[in-house]
């Protein structure tokens, strides 16, 4: 990808994404952490657009910002007496070391491997093709995913339902 627009966009988005991600881990306030997480999600969506994955980018905004971030916010608000500090436990140093190790390894692998780079341009339109694939080749996983979502919904409802809700329904 050589055109100037994409390169500038990539660097800006990458900096925002990674910076916000570090912020998520570093800031003290849990709510600030979630706000930065939303920024990270938005940055990743932007990166998807530079990768010409428009459908996935929009889905990223829709699901991650519109749903998952909100769920996390709900979880924070619904647990008022839990500490809202984003602090680390006794695993701080081992985790830091392990994370650095993983990052280092992966970056090394990324640069060391000779990837089979194709010469094709970005996708023209992904939505239709994805739709075709989902309902054709990946129809079974698609159905399984819907069942998974349903069971997740039911499970979540069952978990947090207050005691005695059975009587209320009847």
């Amino acid at each position, binding site marked *: 990808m050589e*055109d*100037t*627009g994409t390169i500038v966009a990539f660097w800006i988005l990458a900096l925002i994404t990674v910076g916000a991600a570090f912020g998520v881990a570093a800031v003290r*306030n849990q*709510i*600030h952490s979630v*706000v930065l997480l*939303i920024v990270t999600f938005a940055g990743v969506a932007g990166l998807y657009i530079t990768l010409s994955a*428009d*459908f996935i980018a*929009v*889905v990223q*905004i*829709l699901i991650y*910002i*519109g*749903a998952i*971030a*909100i769920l996390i*916010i*709900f979880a924070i*608000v619904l647990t008022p007496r839990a500490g809202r500090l984003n602090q680390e436990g006794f695993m701080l140093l081992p985790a830091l070391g392990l994370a650095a190790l993983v990052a280092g390894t992966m970056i090394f692998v990324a640069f060391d491997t000779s990837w089979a780079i194709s010469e094709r341009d970005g996708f023209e*339109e*992904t*939505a239709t093709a994805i739709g075709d694939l989902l309902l054709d080749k990946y129809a079974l996983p698609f159905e399984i995913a819907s069942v998974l979502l349903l069971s997740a919904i039911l499970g979540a409802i069952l978990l947090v339902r207050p005691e005695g809700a059975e009587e209320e329904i009847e």
Partner: protein
Amino acid sequence: MVILLKGEWYDLRDLANPVRELIDGIGLPDAVDYVLWSLIASVAILTWLVVSVIAFIWIERRVVALMQNRKGPNRVGPAGLLQPIADAIKLLLKEAITTRDADRMLFWLAPIIVFIPTIVVFAVVPFGESMVLANLNVGVLFLIAVAGIMTPAVFIAGWSSNNKYALLAAMRTIAMLISYEIVQVLALLSVVIFIGSMNLQTFVSWQDEYNTWLIFIMPLPLVAYLIAGAVEINRSPMDISEAESELAAGYHTEYGGIKFGFFYQAEYMAGFAIAAAVTTLFLGGWTLWGLEEWIPGWIIFLGKLYAVFFLYIWSRGTLPRLRIDQLMSFAWKFMLPLMLVNVLVIGAEVFIWEETGASRNIALPAIGAVNTTLAVILVVGWGRFLGHGSGRQRGYRATLTREIGKIYYTGAEAS
């Protein structure tokens, strides 16, 4: 005349033409050209938005005043026309108060975040034949996704104010927006199934080509989308997130000065965004049965957009507000099943149309008739099933008596 104008740089039917000619004339490198072009278009859209908001603040106040037996603002300038500008100056000059225990960073950030989605939506809206900033292939999904950013923004505003009304309103808003987002998605899904594309420009050209508007073919998704839109922009009867008589000003209770102005402006812009989406998806966008050859398409588009937005002003002057649980059950128990059935029906219709290969002159009126009847049957039937609008209350009057001391209480019947 039209033939003379066509394609020339002074052809006003497409405002983009003169600008494009001008930029091409200078002969700049591609990248600069691109940036300059986007910049001019963005600034033009923003200017239009701000001017429209200012105009509609005046129009709304005057129209609602007429509905309420009042005169409305009529002191500042001729017929009070300068009132919104006076208000804007007042808001700008006011002290931007941050309450002591507010979360300062988020408190300042929230009005800005609220602003983003409302503006960004207009990037994909086709104002005219080539007047679209970004002709996204997933335009419809983009509309929904960007509107979803509103939710965390509203929460941030409510949370950071450290005000109980604001927090309560923020939680209400989140619950409400998420519920109605599903309705919105399903409403647009049925439309997308029918057209077979998510590109907004394709919607316009489809409606132009088939010489009909989607409002005639599928009224139910339109109504659902309008209702979900009313929820999104806090218009009555869904204005519970800033329910004036309950929660003072809802999630922006603590905001004053220009920060409040941002919320106010963003609310109007979101309203225009919904109206723009409705215009493009259901009302033929910038086309008007061939008239766009003579009248600039963007004028037609704006005319339709303002007409749709007027509906929201009207409802604001007319309807009381629902309670949060009623609104939620309306979304989940009433709208959602209806929309699911609707998606199924539209899908079946598309399938049958493709299978039979009927000509459009037969298929479209037939589908329209089926959908309209079905919409009426579904709304009335499902409403009756849930116990609404059975006319039980219609004849209810107080009991009149001349006897003193008698007790007429029969026990409260559940609503």
